[in-house]
């Protein structure tokens, strides 16, 4: 079974097990990872599931749609490898994925 790591802004690490057919946001919610609000439940409407993907993993997280891109561009803590966690479909290819959480969600 693969694993992924969420690192909070203060450095706290959360390792979670990969489960098939779930977004990265849902993995965070189901494992009570704090710092991902996900107000809209994954509809790409709130921008409160922002994560910053480790550089080496970024390409593997899939394509970014227009709406996600626009929201990320306005996020104060946005980085070149920012993503909305609800738009990342998790597969075994992401075994070992590391993402960082911003200090605040918008």
């Amino acid at each position, binding site marked *: 079974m693969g694993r992924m790591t969420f690192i909070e802004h203060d450095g706290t690490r959360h390792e979670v097990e990969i489960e098939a057919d779930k977004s990265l946001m849902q993995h965070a919610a189901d494992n009570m990872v704090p710092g991902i609000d996900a107000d*809209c439940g994954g509809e790409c*409407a709130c*921008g409160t599931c922002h994560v910053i993907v480790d550089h080496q993993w970024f390409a593997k997280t899939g394509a970014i749609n227009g709406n996600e891109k626009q929201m990320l561009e306005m996020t104060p803590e946005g980085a070149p490898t920012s993503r909305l966690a609800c738009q990342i479909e998790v597969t075994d290819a992401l075994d070992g994925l590391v993402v960082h959480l911003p200090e605040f969600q918008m």
Partner: protein
Amino acid sequence: MSHSPSQPGENQVCVIIGASHAAAQLATSLRQQGWSGSIRMIGDEGGLPYQRPPLSKAFLCGEKGADSLIIRPSAFYEKHQIEFIPGRVTAIDRAAKTLTLADGSEQHYDKLALCTGTRVIRLPIKGASLAGVHYLRTLADVEGIRRELPDTRRVVIIGGGYIGLETAASLRKQGIDVVVLEMAERVLQRVTAPQVSAFYQRMHSEAGVIIETSTMVAAFDGEQRVERVLCADGRSYAADMVIVGIGVRPNSELAEAAGLEIDNGIVVDEYCQTQDPDIVAAGDCANQWDPGSAQRRRLESVPNAVEQAKTAAATLCGEKIPQISLPWFWSDQYDLKLQMAGLNQGYDQVVIRGTADSGSSFAAFYFQQGQLIAADCVNRAPEFMLAKKLLGQKQTFDLTQLADEAIPVKQLMAELTASA
């Protein structure tokens, strides 16, 4: 040895009535806040909490299955010892601290959370009980609609609010002929500016949906199944199916019978507490005191249910955390993503960025005495993010800047938020 402070909820039972957005968050937040006692969630829809918004969107379109709607899987509740009890609570005895369920069983509680939500308003007209007349609130409702869709060519939707319009878009996308009948002079009258209503009417008619405003429905006609919708002015519309979406009412009768104060929902203070120190309420059913505007407000949205649930959970754990979140909402129709922030009641001016008369993207900013109070953003995620930011900082600024598309949103964000 140092004295360890007692954990909240030690040897206590917290019962949550209702099992939807508010309840799911409340149970989770209780555990996050360290509640160590039992948590029991009683819901009358048969299963675990699920996402309601997709019901009129992706789920109605057939793009999402019922499994993917679940807010959290059963393993989550098991792991965190959150017990789900299917059933309907019929009475609260506050003196004895017990609940009675429809099957006659009883449940004891030390702390109680009311997350009973709302139910649809039914149309009390002739023919209302004919087959083919549907409402749209629950998974079961939409499963009923979806079962009949293969034999459905024409649908009449009663009510041009968000749910009616989303339903119209989802059905039209599947090639069904759709007529929307709205009593008011324009769709979305209660919630948006005329420009926004006109925009949605245009988009729907471009998609081939017929919208009739200022139209009163008088009766449904048919043998076994609905065949026609009859209007008060004599017009009639053929239909294989009718979907009624004319609003909801808070489920507050249980609380009322228990002697709690009711006024358009269950009355709670800013911390989601009722008059009973052991009872909180959260979500669609709660009419919450808002210190900012010095009035009560009852909102019907997922973000509100989630925020209130967090506040209520903190209150139950003995911590009073003021709620500072901004109301917001979204709606998906066709390829239009509407994101709204703030509350526009009482606006005296609307500034449009972009154009609502053509194309499919603009933002409407609502002002009251020069102060930004809300924004409706259609396919304008950057403006939505800007509005959220500006609404949080309460200040007045030059309105013309907002309307000027020559100034990029990023620059507005930098300038307008820096001057705060």
